[in-house]
């Protein structure tokens, strides 16, 4: 036999042996790959247990099945006889196996544990909304005996879980205190992919902390439906479906793929009451397709800002002779409604009010081009207006410190971090009167408007500019607030989305 073939046989035999041990199937002494698979396939075909079929697929192919892959293997086994189970199993898995480099993979079954999926944060140097949540939360669980878990990411070809490398751990756990240089991992070669060591959860609990990549949604969906694992996810928002008019089609498309996984999970932890309500409403659609809806819980995000940021803001001395400053922070896209804020500012400028307004936030050229052109026109008219696409932390904090108030009149948010941040810096906010923004504003320090009504934005901004009593009242409300910490969020998330799913026999 050629050495390559010998290696393939050895890898297959080793994976099948792992499965045999997991399923307590006795194998003949020192079996060949074929002998081992013969025994295991016969037993799985006889049991017809979806959990076992899912695991058998991983053993034969070295990849987690998509629902279609699973269906093919299951049909092949359903239509097999004890004598043909072995061939049917190979036949039912050949299509999935032939599309990947996975034949030399090894598998480790991770039984009765907690796996925390941090795929994107582990592999990419990018840090906005979701990544900030993950990189604040997961480190809170490190070294805690009462929070035992493993961090996992997907193989680069998105076909199975692996453990994190040192560099990947660094990206997740030490974002603001890195041990390694900030550079991307080298791309995996086919050889790397072929030899990957997979972690295969079995009767375990998986917490998916991010909105998973489009490419792994089918695998996760099959895992949630057919494997004996329990799955929790963080539910960030349903913006790509509910506010599809503000986004390109492909974002809505990807979100629908995510939903076809999300509908099969056990728990969805919404990042606000409003986000939880959106997922609850989605769950209420599921009986029409015979799917048992997930349990929806609310675990509201933290509202604290870092102590260094707070100190920086508090150290700024504001010159009372400066004209009042309005800031509007957030990525630049139609949903965030910056155009309406600029219009309101223009009206107030025409009315003769003296103020300076600063927009901060990056955006695609398509979204910012016209806005920036309008800003320069208004500057020429003598209006004090600026638009910054990139701004360092220090400059941003200095703006928060100087601002009379901030404006965040978005049309739809999962949480509304800019509102929470502004309040944590002690700056009053003008925000929207519904959804998660209404929720985050309910602690006080905010004026709320219908963001689709230009005139109400104009009126509110005018009041906030001229009414000192109103502003000092808002400051008073802010002083009494205690922001929620990331430690609290991490605790609540574990208690609501992980602990209830951990099998009791695993705890004992």
């Amino acid at each position: 036999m050629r050495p390559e073939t010998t290696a393939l046989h050895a890898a297959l035999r080793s994976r099948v042996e792992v499965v045999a041990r997991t399923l307590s199937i006795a194998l003949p002494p020192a079996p060949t790959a074929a002998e081992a698979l013969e025994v295991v396939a016969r037993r799985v075909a006889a049991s017809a247990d979806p959990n076992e079929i899912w695991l058998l697929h991983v053993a034969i192919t070295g990849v987690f099945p998509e629902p279609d892959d699973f269906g093919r293997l299951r049909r092949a086994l359903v239509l097999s006889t004890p004598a043909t189970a072995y061939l049917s199993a190979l036949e039912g898995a050949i299509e999935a196996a032939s599309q990947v480099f996975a034949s030399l993979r090894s598998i480790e079954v991770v039984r009765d544990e907690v796996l925390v999926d941090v795929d994107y944060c582990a592999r990419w140097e990018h840090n906005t909304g979701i990544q900030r949540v993950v990189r604040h939360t997961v480190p809170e669980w490190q070294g805690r005996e009462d929070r035992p878990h493993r961090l996992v990411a997907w193989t680069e070809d998105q076909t199975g879980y692996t453990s994190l490398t040192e560099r990947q751990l660094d990206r997740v756990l030490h974002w603001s205190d890195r041990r390694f240089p900030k550079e991307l991992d080298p791309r995996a070669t086919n050889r790397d992919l072929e030899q990957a060591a997979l972690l295969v959860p079995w009767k375990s609990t998986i917490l998916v902390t991010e909105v998973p990549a489009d490419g792994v949604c089918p695998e996760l969906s099959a895992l949630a439906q057919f494997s004996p694992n329990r799955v929790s996810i963080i539910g960030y928002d349903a913006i790509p479906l509910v506010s599809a008019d503000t986004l390109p089609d492909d974002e809505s498309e990807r979100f629908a793929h995510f939903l076809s996984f999300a509908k099969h999970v056990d728990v969805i932890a919404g990042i606000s009451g409003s986000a939880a309500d959106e997922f609850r409403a989605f769950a209420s659609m599921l009986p029409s397709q015979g799917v048992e809806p997930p349990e929806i819980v609310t675990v509201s995000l933290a509202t604290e800002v870092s102590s260094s940021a707070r100190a920086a803001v508090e150290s700024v001395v504001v010159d009372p002779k400066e004209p009042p400053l309005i800031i509007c922070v957030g990525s630049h896209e139609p949903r965030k409604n910056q155009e309406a804020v600029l219009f309101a500012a223009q009206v107030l400028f025409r009315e003769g009010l003296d103020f300076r307004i600063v927009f901060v936030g990056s955006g695609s050229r398509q979204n910012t081009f016209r806005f920036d052109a309008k800003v320069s026109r208004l500057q020429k008219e003598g209006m004090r207006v600026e638009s910054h696409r990139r701004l360092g932390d220090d400059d941003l904090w200095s703006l928060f410190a100087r601002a009379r108030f901030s404006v965040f009149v978005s049309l739809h948010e999962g949480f509304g971090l800019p509102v929470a941040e502004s309040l944590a810096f002690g700056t009053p906010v003008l925000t929207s009167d519904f959804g998660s923004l209404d929720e985050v504003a309910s602690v006080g320090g905010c004026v709320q408007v219908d963001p689709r009504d230009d005139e109400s934005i104009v009126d509110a901004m005018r009041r906030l500019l001229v009414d000192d009593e109103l502003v000092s009242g808002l400051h008073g409300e802010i002083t009494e607030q205690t922001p929620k910490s990331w430690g609290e969020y991490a605790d609540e998330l574990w208690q609501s989305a992980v602990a209830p799913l951990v099998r009791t026999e695993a705890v004992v």
Partner: protein
Amino acid sequence: MPNPFAPVLSVLPPLGREGADDALRAAATAVLGNAFGWRRTSGRALVREVSSALGAPDPTVSYVFLACLQQRIPRSSEIVEFTRSWRLDGVEEPLLAAWGSSRPKPGVRVVVASGVVVDVTETGRSAFTTGIQRVTRESVTRWVRDHDDVDLVSWDHAGARLAGLTELEASRVVLDADTRRRVRRLPSTVVVPYRATFVLPEITTQGRRSENIRTIARYSRSRAVAIGHDCIPVTTSETAGPGMAGAFSKYLAALAGFDVVASVSNASATEFRGWAQMLGGAGLSGPRVVPVPLPRQSAAIDDATVARVTSELGLDDGVPTVLAVGSHEPRKNHLTLLAAAELRWRAGDEFHLVLVGGNAWGDADFTRMVEALLAAGRPISLLSAVGDDTVWSLYRIARLSVFCSLNEGFGLPVVESLASGTPVLTSDFGSMRELGEGHGAVLVDPYDVHAIARELGSLLEDDARIETLRRETGRLERSTWDDYAKRVWELVEAPSRVSEG
């Protein structure tokens, strides 16, 4: 002064603006009425005269003027910008700019429509009959027959302009010639709904059309009513073709501004209500969802036709027939049916399996499996593009039908089978359960191949059980398309809610 239209205005020739003037008059007449006698002036004087008659900034008025002057539904960003410019500088400046850049096609007339406007674009273009198109044709034909002031409209291929139907489109939408004569002909027109009742009986998956329907629902101060079929592309995207879920999300975003969705079943209402509830996160209230179940009608087929179809298809050998109607897309779950049937054949059961339905997205596994079973000598017949007579005959011929779909808004094959007196094996949830339970259906978990095989075996063997189920089909309430069209029309006609809060 900042004005997006200003650069265009400066290069305009002063003369030859009759088309733009007419468009302006049409808008002014719709918004302000005829009392002002818009024919007395023209050109810039007309713009000034109209401007001075307009009151406070109003996005709906912006919509009407932009739509008439541009001969298309304006983008919502254009409406917002026009209205903001109106607020800052008065209406004359943006109106003059819009008038100046107006280039109406010669001979094309703008019609501001304030009656019932029914969008039948896809149905008018397609010679096929999907479930949605069938509902559209049956309903619209009756609405045109029974009511005056119903205009049928269709979008151009870009999805930018609404126009009256062509003869060909009308012949595809309205089922009988007498009624077709009642359709108001609107040749060479651009239709602008304003204070109208806009009705969408089909769905839209074309981006610009969806966006414009959203604009109409939001800005035209019209009542908007849709027939809601299902939300499957977003709730069951694993069964939808590539691109469908994204495009369907835009359709739902358009429906968000509608007043009423008449859903085709209670199960479909469950989906639409859940979606409408999701809108709360964006501060929107969404439409009222009212279930109006589709009719349960069968066609009368004479015995001679049934006998002819039986022999033509070789089903006259005394072996019972199992019928499955539905396209070969994965959602219809034909793969599980084939596996269950194979288990029965292996167990020694004899039956014909007749599958009626066309090729579809994602049917490679299905095709392969059918080929393998045929090669093994299994009696499977694949029929597609067959006439109604054949389908209705097959329902009569079959001992039972199978429809174990994974998700349906309605499930016409369930109703068609039961209305024909033929028991159906169908899924134990959603609309299929709703239609079938207690009416001659056997309910089963469509994911469980052994359960399907078990019930199939029992139904093939147990004559008494089939007889009982046949009797039960008599309990299905036989409603008609007339009933259905009337009930939806009541929702179309109902006055707008007095206050939107």
